[in-house]
């Protein structure tokens, strides 16, 4: 190779190398689209505290709660794509915000580049500990016999729980629930424990402790494998409903246009932090099931989930009793 070519190559590559090495030169923001203290926030603070050691700059968790995440994600879609702005994306909440035309979202699915997934909290169907429904079959039979009479709580309209009810109704023809939407897990707990609502579609992380103590009875976990937190509860696949797979996942994304070397740098620090024993221990204590996905695997998951959410969002909007 001629010397001038080497020189030219070096000169051309220099800014890139310099940029990758210079990043990060200042603290990095990590936006959480929910208020402080929620499970997304807690998990974010745990991983940020570990990842900043490797990144060499502090990671500042900023809460931009509101409108089921829409306020924070709107800001994220408009943020400067320079790597100093990352944000948590919660799926399928982000998908349904984009997909529901009523929400008039100012961004689409391509506005974000998924970097790394942290948590996958599987869906679960549960009833009160002394409920007459001993297993999933009892509940489905009742919902078939009395369509739209058995009340089922969700943690919000177009939440993963709402979509899960629709998946269940699709997989068990003739069964139809009376869907009652609440805002978040706490009111669902109060309403079902007070005997006002018969069953709840929820996530393992928020209820598994009460299932262990017997206060609540889990009927099925909406996953392909059993939850390590409640290994006695059968999965939907075991029960013969392999299509009823639902979860809430939380991962980190950056705005579209963020340079690839910067994404790689962030991914490297975050991945290292998520594999750290301290992270594993804290997440175990918080009852959050880890599923670390990076790069193309996470991007593929994001795309496929979006397509799946599109089908059920459309269905939710056309169902006579939403």
């Amino acid at each position: 190779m001629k010397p001038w070519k080497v020189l030219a190559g070096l000169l051309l590559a220099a800014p890139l190398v310099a940029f990758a090495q210079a990043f990060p030169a200042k603290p990095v923001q990590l936006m959480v689209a929910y208020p402080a203290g929620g499970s997304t926030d807690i998990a974010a603070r745990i991983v940020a505290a570990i990842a900043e050691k490797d990144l060499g700059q502090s990671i500042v968790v900023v809460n931009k709660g509101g409108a089921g995440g829409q306020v924070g994600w709107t800001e994220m879609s408009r943020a400067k794509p320079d790597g100093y702005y990352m944000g948590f994306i919660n799926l399928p909440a982000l998908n349904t915000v984009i997909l529901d035309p009523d929400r008039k979202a100012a961004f689409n699915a391509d506005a974000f580049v998924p970097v790394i997934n942290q948590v996958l909290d599987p869906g679960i169907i549960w009833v009160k500990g002394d409920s007459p429904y001993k297993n999933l079959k009892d509940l489905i039979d009742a919902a078939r016999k009395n369509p739209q009479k058995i009340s089922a709580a969700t943690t919000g309209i177009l939440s993963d729980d709402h979509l899960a009810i629709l998946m269940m109704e699709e997989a068990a023809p003739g069964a139809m629930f009376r869907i009652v939407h609440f805002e978040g897990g706490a009111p669902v707990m109060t309403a079902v424990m007070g005997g006002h609502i018969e069953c709840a579609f929820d996530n393992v992380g928020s209820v598994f402790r009460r299932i262990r103590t017997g206060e609540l009875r889990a009927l099925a976990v909406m996953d392909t494998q059993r939850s390590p937190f409640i290994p006695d509860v059968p999965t939907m696949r075991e029960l013969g409903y392999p299509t009823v797979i639902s979860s809430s996942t939380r991962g980190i994304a950056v705005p579209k246009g963020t340079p690839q070397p910067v994404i790689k740098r962030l991914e490297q620090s975050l991945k290292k932090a998520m594999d750290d024993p301290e992270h594993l221990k804290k997440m175990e204590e918080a009852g959050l099931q880890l599923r670390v996905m990076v790069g193309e695997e996470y991007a593929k998951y994001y795309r496929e989930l979006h397509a799946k959410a599109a089908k059920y969002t459309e269905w939710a909007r056309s169902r006579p009793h939403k």
Partner: protein
Amino acid sequence: MEGVQYLASGFASALTPANLAFALAGCILGTLIGVLPGLGPAAGTAILIPLTFTLDATGAIIMLAAIYYGAMYGGTITSVLINVPGEAASVVTCLDGYQMARQGRAGAALGIAAIGSFVGGLFAAAALVMVAPPLARFALSFGPPEFFALMFLGLCLVTGLAGQSLAAALLMTVLGLLLALIGIDPVRGAPRFTFGIPELYDGLGFVPVVMGLFGVAEILLVVEAPFRRLVETKLKGLWPSAEEWKRSAGAIGRGTGIGFVLGLIPGVGAVIPTFMAYIVEKRLSRHPEKFGTGAIEGVAAPETANNAYANASMIPLLVLGVPSSPTIAILMGAFIINGLTPGPFLFKERPDLVWTVIASFFIGNVILLVLNLPLVGLWARLLRLPYQYLCAGTLLFCIVGAYSLKGTLFDVGVMLVFGIIGYLLRKLGFPLAPAVLALILGPFMEKSLRTSLEMSGGDFGIFVTRPISASLLACAALILAVSALRLAALKSIRGGTL
């Protein structure tokens, strides 16, 4: 009494120097959080949770609980001194507390608030020992229809809260309800009255609106009359007078009861008990016209209810594992992070810890009183500052508070706009309290109304076929009827002109 025995050993472990230090640090931090508007108890507690990661479980929870109580009291200080509620539960304290401060009685207002808080908190903590489990189970019978009926009752009561004119009060209530409609429809998810502004999707922030209506509007009114001190009269005594004690005693007793009962019911929130306590005092008073002009009962009752509520709301958490407010939910998160699951089994599995924490509630209430009474004089002296400095300081404080809520300038704008609206309404003689209560209750009322209808498949009968809901609605109907009759009587006296 098994509970009392356990409590004694709880005191023994809560009184170790380390745990006492945690409670003291928590009270101080909490008071600071309460003083800063915008940074409410929920956000404050959440931000401070990592501080407790390095402590052991007992110490961490003692400290967080102390932060919570401290924050509930801290909000009072700014309400009384500069008419800016540090957090939502102190809104109603502005009505009479600030008027007292203008008459030079800031010390008495802050003193009675500290003492009322102490009594209410102590009683609720004692009740937690004695009667918590059966009461908490009863509270679960409040489903969405019962909530709706309770809020409806509150809104009917508020018509009596207003000043001279029932029509003006009703107008302001409706204005508050209309403002509460802004944002995403809680059931269907469609935005309403948002004009495509994402910041409005979550509704108008309650704190910026109230800081505007009360704090900024007050500054505008003060600026009208230049070259005078904010408080013209001398600071008369920092201790409530014998007469004021007498008037407050009943208010403190009733405030304790109201705060305690409402604290048992998950989901009521800290604001409703304070308003309820205030309304009850005004209804029972022989001089209802004095309310809003500096009646000490109007400070004592809500402040007592506020702290009784804060302590009682621990009962559903400890007994049932159900968090009754966002702040309590964050405390529950702290329990869980420390490897403890609140709920009926916690009493069986870790009685040592539970009773130490309960004992620390008593200690926290004492520390709060000891901490705050000597400071009352210091706070009250702030009012001697010339008004131009105090006004500038207040405005800065409001702007920082509004900004720190979500970190957006939008809320600052909301606060300034509502400052102007509040100024105009005050000039026109419209009462602000009904609008504020309707704005707070509106979203909850709508949510529980529509959830109830989802439960019943659209049948309104659900509100009258359930006994608790039916009785609450009957009370509301009775109150409306009495108000209407009184109005009719008033009308005939005045010869039909109103």
